[in-house]
């Protein structure tokens, strides 16, 4: 089976900082991959290269058969790849409903009724059907993040990227967001998730990856990576966060 995400020897520099140092990774359709690793190890950069929010300097990334080279391809890929950010990045000047409608209309060119139905369905799915008319800043962090997930899902993405989706949340709100993500994983969504939530990784992920210094150090099913890692660097990282 051809991987839906193919990452081959990708390098990325920020000036003199070598943020990605030859990353290779293949992800199959429907797989859920959790990425962990110390701060500055390149987790966000890797994620952002997959939808080209960041340009890489060397190597190759192919998403759903589309190579990330021309500007046209980049936009094509972005409509297939949803992204959820640590800081939610909802559009504060638009209501929750309009946040979910906007890209459906201007990118997917869907009509008002179809878009609204989709939005209501997704708000129901993420558990906040009654907040459509609210503005983002009137919602709790957990609610905002769930709207952000609904907003991304409205584009019918084939892949969802999550960059530390719960690390800006108060502890009591983390679970509600993880629950939505777990449901999504069980529905067969292909997901790449940067997160140190072990419970989520165990419940939802097929693979766990440890990154350090711009490289993938070790990969295993989450249970094994967390309890019985082979590499020294994985052990020392896990001992710090557990």
């Amino acid at each position, binding site marked *: 089976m051809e991987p839906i995400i193919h990452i081959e020897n990708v390098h990325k520099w920020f000036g003199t900082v070598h943020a990605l140092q030859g990353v290779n990774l293949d992800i199959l359709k429907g797989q859920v991959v959790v990425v962990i690793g110390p701060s500055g190890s390149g987790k966000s950069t890797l994620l952002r290269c997959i*939808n080209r929010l960041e340009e890489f300097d060397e190597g190759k990334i192919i998403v759903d058969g589309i190579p990330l080279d021309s500007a046209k391809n980049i936009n094509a890929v972005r409509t297939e790849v949803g992204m959820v950010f640590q800081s939610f990045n909802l559009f504060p000047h638009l209501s929750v409903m309009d946040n979910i409608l906007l890209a459906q209309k201007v*990118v997917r060119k869907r009509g008002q009724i179809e878009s609204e139905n989709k939005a209501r369905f997704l708000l129901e799915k993420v558990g906040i059907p009654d907040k459509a008319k609210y503005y983002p*800043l009137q919602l709790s962090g957990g609610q905002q993040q769930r709207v952000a997930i609904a907003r991304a899902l409205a584009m019918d993405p084939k892949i969802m990227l999550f960059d530390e989706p719960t690390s800006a949340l108060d502890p009591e709100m983390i679970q509600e967001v993880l629950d939505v993500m777990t449901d999504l994983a069980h529905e067969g969504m292909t997901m790449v998730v940067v997160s140190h939530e072990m419970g989520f990784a165990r419940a939802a992920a097929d693979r766990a990856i440890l990154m350090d210094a711009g490289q993938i150090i070790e990969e295993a099913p989450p249970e094994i990576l967390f309890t019985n890692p082979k590499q020294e660097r994985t052990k020392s990282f896990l001992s710090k966060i557990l």
Partner: protein
Amino acid sequence: MSSSSYPAPTPKPLISSGKTEKKSRIDPWWGLVAVVVALILILNFSSPDPYNRILVFLQEGIWVTVKITLISFLLVMVLGLFVGLARLSKNTIVRGIATVYVEVIRGIPMMVQIIFWYFASPAIVQQIGTSLNNPALANFRPDGTTMAIFGLTFGYAAYMSEVYRAGIQSISRGQMEAARSLGMTYFQAMRYVILPQAVRVILPPVGNEFITLLKDTALVSAVAVPDMTRRGREFQASTFIIIETWVMVALVYLVMTLLATRLVSWVEKRSKFER
């Protein structure tokens, strides 16, 4: 995430103090407008000669001033946006051209720019026309008002581009990234996500530019455009009535700028409460 400048939606009226605030006290600045207008009227009726004569003579000039201000301002808003976006461009050449334009314009007095557009630029076109044996270009003689609008537009667009640039930069990078990650193009993201938020930030400085532009239109009197200042000078030259003429010109400018100030603050208030 702490900003709470966004209003309550219909379901839950969060602003309980709204009622007391809404009892619209008359803005004291309207008082000042009223005083100046009253002053003009009193002068006009108590001593029609010379004040009424002056006003009648200025009338056409007032319209020219208003016209030049409004047209230039509209063009400045558009050109300034493009220059502001160009200054934020990733493309070095585009950014370089925009930066040079802004720096050059800001380094030359507005008066000199207007004179340049009116006298020097047609001369350049004429010389090119002569050397190309093109009679249309050789006899190029543009209308003064048009060239004045050109000069003001190019001059003010440089300042306005900085206003736009600061406004756009004040919106967090995550907003653009979220929009792009949803598949929007750069211009869609600007139009639907960034600019609507930036508007709230740039309205006050845009208002200031508008009022400064209104006052700077007096500079076009240097190039034979019959604006209010020019008319004042013509009236003074033919009647030797000096003090009264300039008192009246000053008062009319004052009314216009005070009204513009009111207009600007009204727009600002509205933009805060709409949606």
